[in-house]
């Protein structure tokens, strides 16, 4: 195989092969056809459309939290720093050399950050049983209990996220209009601190209100936009 401009340990043999091809019309025709076929396939694959919003999703993530950087930094550093902070909360599916159990604040921060970018769902369905089967097949938490009052609302879909190497199941529920509730479930061992409380612990994350609690060996995080009173409606605690 030959690729233009690439040095290889086979260069001598390649050179000889190319000289033979030059001297043999049939071989030359075959060789040119090979190159033409590669060129066409490469061109077809290069025309694969990239989702229109992808670049915007990446760059908007970098601008999500500009206030965390010092205003005296130059633009490139500012963007890089904003990316570090914003992407840390926006993208969930990363694994790093970190301790396996992190604080509930870290968890809450990353999960809320994730839903701000309107994540893609891996399965869209209003059938909770189907969603749980999908999550089980993906080896993510699937045997969880949806808060009683939230059960009255129709699911929209689900996906699997990762939080510091742990699988997190996300199920979204339609609350009316374009409002959604997001229920995250992960192993309780992934979280340390007040995430282990059996009663919901409430915390605001900008426009979002969150409640975190643990049942059995799983930690739940429910988020909706609005205040605590609004969230409590779905937990059945008010």
């Amino acid at each position, binding site marked *: 195989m030959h690729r233009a401009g*690439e040095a290889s340990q086979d260069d001598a043999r390649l050179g000889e092969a190319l000289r033979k091809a030059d001297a043999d019309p049939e071989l030359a025709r075959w060789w040119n056809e090979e190159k033409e076929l590669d060129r066409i396939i490469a061109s077809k694959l290069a025309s694969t459309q990239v989702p229109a919003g992808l670049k915007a999703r990446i760059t908007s993530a970098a601008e999500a939290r500009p206030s965390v950087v010092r205003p005296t930094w130059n633009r490139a550093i500012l963007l*890089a720093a904003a990316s570090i902070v914003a992407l840390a909360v926006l993208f969930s599916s990363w694994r790093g050399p970190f301790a396996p159990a992190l604080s509930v604040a870290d968890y809450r921060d990353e999960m809320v950050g994730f839903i701000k970018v309107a994540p893609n769902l891996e399965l869209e369905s209003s059938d909770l049983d189907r969603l749980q089967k999908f999550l089980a097949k993906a080896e993510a938490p699937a045997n969880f209990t949806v808060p009683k009052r939230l059960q009255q609302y129709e699911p929209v879909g689900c996906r699997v996220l*990762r939080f510091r190497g742990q699988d997190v199941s996300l199920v979204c529920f339609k609350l009316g209009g374009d409002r959604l509730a997001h229920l995250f479930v992960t192993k309780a061992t992934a979280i340390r601190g007040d995430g282990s409380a059996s009663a919901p612990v409430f915390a605001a994350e900008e426009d979002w209100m969150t409640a975190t609690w643990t049942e059995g060996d799983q930690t739940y995080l429910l988020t909706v936009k609005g205040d605590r009173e609004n969230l409590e409606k779905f937990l059945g605690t008010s």
Partner: protein
Amino acid sequence: MAEVDPEELVGTYYAPLYRFGLSLSRNEADAGDLVQQTFYTWATKGHQLRDTSKVKTWLFTTLYRDFLAKKRHADRFVDTDESEFVEPVHVAPSAVDALDASIVQKALHALDDRYRAPVTLFYMQQHSYREIAEILNVPIGTVMSRISRGKAELRNQLSDVAAAEGRKIVPMEGGQAHG
């Protein structure tokens, strides 16, 4: 270390990374996630890269490793080439040129995992064999072998598709019907 402009980095590489991610995952949503994840990793760990001329390889390597990390144990790649070499059939370039790009992409997606990644990188025409070997973390000889086998399989599939498409051609008045 020369400074890397984050905006330029995204602008230059998000599309080829997406195409690579799509080829690996065969799923648009997953491909988008892989690209986002790659730039996230760059934002957090990119400063560790001392040689900025390696940024391209670093990004593709990172995306590939993340893809592998997400794959379940059951379908991990194996490092041995167990399948027998498939003799490539002749495919006329014009027959492939007549195919829709989505059909070519579908044929690529049908390749076995171990061939799909190197063949995709090969056809991107942005990477040397050495870089592909680095990205996939396999010896360069293995890369060349897998590309050769993958291309052969791809051509066989394209030949089948092209033949099927040929049979669909409605002859012009007075023309000859195909197959």
